[in-house]
């Protein structure tokens, strides 16, 4: 039998896409891109392209889902049929449903849901192109869109992944590294409050490796946080020049 040797993902300290171990992919975030939504954002991280629209707080339909004590946060994570190669079915998959739930719990703790009883806040995430760590990219974009919708929040939510590829702990996994790597550790975090809102792990890491990956992901989050702030400041700085209203 022919043994095909698996292609190495790391050669001489450089990853398959030319990055160092602790380097993020290039990121671009823009807020307020959809005029019909209450809030929106567009994010590019490497080859990832994510579009987010936020609606609400608004009256929840159907009403039996409403909670009389707090608002309901509803997330819809969806990958476009053309986001992957080969084409993917547009019907929501089991994975889409799971990621919607994961994002909801990552974002929920940053919102003042108890202020809007009976209402719903709806977050629609559309992955236009997927290149690994989309749950992190979506969470980052969604929290910018929530701020853009004018919804009060305790903090922004930043997310970033780290993992183990070819025995090395690396930051911000891309698609190949995610699939071929040995472990994947997505982390969502509120930087100003210092709280972790999501931590998942897929694969095997030793305790030491976990600590290292966690620290690396945290660093990545702090870097991405600056991009989030930048996106909001570029949009709102224009209107934010000095003058008292009334």
């Amino acid at each position: 039998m022919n043994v095909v040797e698996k292609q190495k993902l790391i050669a001489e300290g450089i990853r398959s896409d030319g990055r160092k171990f602790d380097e993020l992919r290039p990121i671009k975030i823009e807020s307020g891109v959809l005029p019909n939504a209450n809030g929106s954002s567009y994010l590019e991280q490497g080859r990832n392209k994510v579009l987010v629209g936020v609606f609400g707080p608004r009256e929840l339909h159907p009403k039996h889902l409403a909670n009389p004590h707090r608002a309901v946060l509803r997330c819809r994570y969806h990958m476009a049929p053309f986001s992957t190669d080969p084409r993917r079915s547009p019907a929501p998959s089991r994975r889409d449903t799971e990621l919607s739930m994961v994002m909801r719990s990552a974002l929920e703790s940053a919102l003042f849901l108890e202020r809007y009883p009976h209402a719903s806040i709806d977050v629609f995430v559309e992955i236009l192109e997927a290149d690994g760590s989309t749950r992190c990219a979506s969470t980052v974009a969604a929290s910018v869109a929530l701020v853009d919708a004018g919804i009060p929040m305790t903090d922004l939510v930043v997310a970033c992944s780290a993992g183990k590829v070819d025995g090395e702990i690396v930051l911000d996994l891309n698609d190949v590294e995610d699939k071929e790597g040995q472990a994947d550790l997505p982390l969502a975090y509120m930087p100003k409050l210092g709280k972790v809102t999501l931590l998942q792990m897929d694969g095997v890491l030793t305790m030491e490796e976990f600590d290292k990956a966690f620290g690396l992901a945290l660093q990545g989050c702090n870097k991405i946080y600056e991009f989030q702030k930048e996106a909001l400041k570029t949009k709102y700085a224009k209107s934010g020049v000095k003058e008292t209203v009334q």
Partner: protein
Amino acid sequence: MSQLLENRVLVVPGDMLADGGLRPGENTYRLHGKIHAARVGLVEYNRGTVSVIALKANYEPKVGETVIGTITEIDLGSWRVDIDAPSQAVLNLPEAIGEPFRPEMVLPNIFGIGDSIVARIVSMNRDGTPVLSTLEPGLGKVEVGRVVRITSSKIPRLIGKRGSMVNMILKETGCQIVIGQNGIVLLNCKDREVEQLVVQVLHKIESEAHTTGLTNRVYEYIKEMKEKSKK
């Protein structure tokens, strides 16, 4: 005082504004004795209170405000009105016509589904639902006009200091303008061209709110546009 930032610095949610000694004002919250921002906006320290002037905020109804809404549902003796708020408002029949309810009254003949109404928020229900009234003069069904939406947090700018902005627009264009605090503006103009001009002016105010000398610039803008249309 434990002011951490300068006045009128742009902040995003989570930014720490003060570490004790001050009171949390609008769009802020207190956590472990520290005050943080809850919305994107400009921080303001004023007489012991820290607040954030929101640059974008979802509409949160308050008692006494005039709003413009659309009828979405008709119940027995009341209407449900969409006012772009977290929950739909209620308009009870006595508050609409000033008479008690009688079973032979036909509610759709007073306000039908899809009708726009100008109303005032008179109280809040226990569950936070706003309760409306259309009994005062100037309130009631919208018969003619055009509805324009802008961000509700920019409404104070459209009104201006003691109504300076809205009065100027009225004087310059002759359009009747009804402003809902929920960000919905009703225009009633002589012709389509003037109406179109005012719509552009509203969007200009929305995007340039918080800049100095806006009233004057809008005045110049209206003049310029009027000149153009004459040619």
